[in-house]
């Protein structure tokens, strides 16, 4: 057992490397992932080890990249296809939504698609409207896809391993601002089950539900509030589809207060779905309405000065948490 520090990007890379070593059916394809190792370095060094036909540089065509993955996956291979930025998911939407997600259903169950789509999402790098989006809600809306969004290096490795081994099409979303985050990551291979949330911090006063980079911001907010005696339970969703409603509801029943946090725009975001499920399954346990902390309803602006107002952070999350508790008749 060796635990050493690895970055979020490094953990992703190691999951892919170990999967490719263990299983000759795994191969990767995407723009600039070969000699260059991907524009974010997440595929670094893999082509040198596994060759140009297992880590394949592709032409610039996102729908073709996903379509290629689908064609290969139905033969039993386990393709990992990369879409450089999550914004480019839109270019490949037909292949993802109308093909990958539905083929098993439309083939009467006889097609299996062990396809992993990897992509990089999120704001905070001054990359503006077309290179900063958080579009996970679009994907979670589609029956047939699994959507995974790790918040730290340890989870990244375990979840990416699970994605590659998964027999359904999965979308692995990496947050660009987390790529350099370091954490303890075991060297040996391990898997974190898809569809299970994780209690990242226990507390009795309020449940904070988040994922990806916002999970870390929520933990920071929880730490600050602890100084004021507010104990937050922070739930890391890890997998967005299928959503672990049971864990969410169990936590809500313990704390009676909820804040959902995401970087995507609030309107029609995952928070809306989570709030609806909570009121369906735990309405009687709520002491205050479910609060959502999310981005305003506009494209992501370029300028760091504007972007900083746009993206939720520990401060706005803490404000949201206080607001929920103030709203509550029992307080805390």
């Amino acid at each position, binding site marked *: 057992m060796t635990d050493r520090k690895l970055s979020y990007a490094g953990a992703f890379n190691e999951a892919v490397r170990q999967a490719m070593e263990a299983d000759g059916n795994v191969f990767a394809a995407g*723009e*600039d992932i*070969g*000699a*260059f*190792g991907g*524009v974010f370095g997440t595929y670094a060094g893999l082509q040198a080890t596994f060759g*140009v*036909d297992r880590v*394949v*540089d*592709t*032409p*610039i*065509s*996102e*729908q*073709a990249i996903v379509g290629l993955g689908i064609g290969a996956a139905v033969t039993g291979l386990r393709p990992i296809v990369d879409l450089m930025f999550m*914004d*480019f998911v*839109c*270019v490949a939407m037909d292949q993802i939504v109308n093909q990958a997600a539905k083929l098993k259903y439309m083939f009467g169950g006889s097609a299996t698609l062990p396809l992993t789509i990897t992509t990089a999402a999120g704001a905070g790098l*001054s*990359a*503006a*409207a*077309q*290179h900063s989006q958080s579009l996970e809600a679009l994907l979670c809306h589609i029956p047939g896809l699994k959507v995974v969004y790790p918040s730290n290096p340890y989870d990244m490795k375990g979840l990416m391993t699970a994605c590659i081994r998964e027999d359904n099409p999965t979308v692995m979303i990496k947050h660009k601002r987390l790529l350099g985050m370091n954490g303890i990551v075991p060297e040996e291979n391990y898997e974190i089950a898809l569809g299970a949330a994780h209690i990242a911090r226990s507390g009795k006063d309020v449940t904070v539900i988040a994922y990806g980079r916002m999970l870390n911001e929520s933990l920071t907010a929880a730490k600050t509030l602890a100084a004021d005696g507010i104990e937050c339970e922070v739930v890391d969703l890890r997998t967005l589809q299928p959503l672990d409603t049971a864990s969410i509801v169990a936590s809500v029943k313990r704390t009676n207060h909820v804040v959902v946090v995401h970087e995507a725009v609030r*309107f029609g975001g995952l928070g809306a779905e989570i709030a609806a499920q909570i009121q369906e399954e735990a309405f009687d346990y709520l002491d205050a309405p479910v609060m959502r902390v999310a981005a*305003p*309803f*506009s*494209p992501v*602006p*370029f*300028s*760091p*000065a*504007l972007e900083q*107002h*746009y993206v939720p952070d520990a401060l706005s999350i803490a404000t949201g948490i206080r607001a929920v508790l103030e709203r509550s008749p029992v307080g805390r």
Partner: protein
Amino acid sequence: MAEAPPLRFRVPEPLARPGEQPDFSYVQISDPGAVQRPDVAAASAELRDLSYSLICVLGDDGVAVGQWAPEIRAEALIVGLRAMMTTRAYDARMLRAQRQGKTSFYIASTGEEAIAVGQALELGQRDMFFPTYRQQGWLVARGWPLVQMMCQVFSNEQDRLRGRQMPIMYSAKDVGFFSISGNLGTQYIQAVGWAMASAIKGDTAIASGVVGEGATAEADFHHALTFASTYDAPVILNVVNNQWAISSFQGIAGGEGPSFAARAIGYGIPGLRVDGNDYLAVVAATRWAAERARSNHGPTVIEWVTYRAAAHSTSDDPSKYRPKDEWKSWPLGDPIDRLQRHLIASGAWSHEQHADLHADIERLVLEAAKEAESYGTLLDGRVASSKSIFDDVFEVMPPHLRRQQRELEG
């Protein structure tokens, strides 16, 4: 029957990687003046050879030769030279500003200035250009104020787009420059739509769209050619083949097969393959394609053969994937040097004038940078108000956005 062999697929590899000698032996070059210039009304089926040869006007001696040598006055060429040199100086200044933290991102067009500048000066004032992020030369050539460009790069108080758009993704309706898209290729079919609209209105303005050779893999490229050919739309469809798409050499976009110009043949569109570093060839080919479009003979695809001398962007590190100083071996040279040589050979220009012009441009660019910086840069945070986040999301701001705007103001 013999047993079938196991199947293989081929992944194209560049001829030279880091540490190796640059090798451009794959670039097919024709002698200057060797290619015939057909009538603009010629049927596309008669023009196939133009997709495989290279239209080139300027010889090594700087003399313009052959049927493609355009009729153009020396003064007009000097305007082009000045715009190319200004673009290069502008790029250098902005790269420096990026290193100093005054902006966070920049894309230079070094080595391929002739294409945007030549098109800007050859096309009409009412024509519309659908650029990529490497066509800033158009704005410079059309005399759009450098200070305005820089204010967007610095995302400062005077930024017309109020901090919302990427530094280099300009738009300028007044000089026929459509907004640049960060997502590749979208502008190509939009150019066709614009050209068709011009025809619907009975207007005389044409459109010119640009993609890089890498982005020809996007469906938008094929959509644009299909529609342009179906409707004989009055449009010029440019492919800037600068050999690299970030880390992917042009073979990854299929460039080892037929030329990018030859993609047009299957669509029944003429495809010209042109020396993009030869300013006179740029003028001549643009003129030919524009005349063809204006006289209702339909679209033209032009592949400009050039080289991306700069890194892809300030986020890129070319030493990871191509030989250092590969550009020095590029067989088609530097567009500024070549035009300078031509002007000197024809007696219209001198080394002294060139040196004076260079100094003049350096001074103007520096002055513009000083002025733009006086309105703020990313370093001092003098930017548009954060309220502007909600402007222009919709034509008229709906109530729920007005509410969010008030909340943000606190």
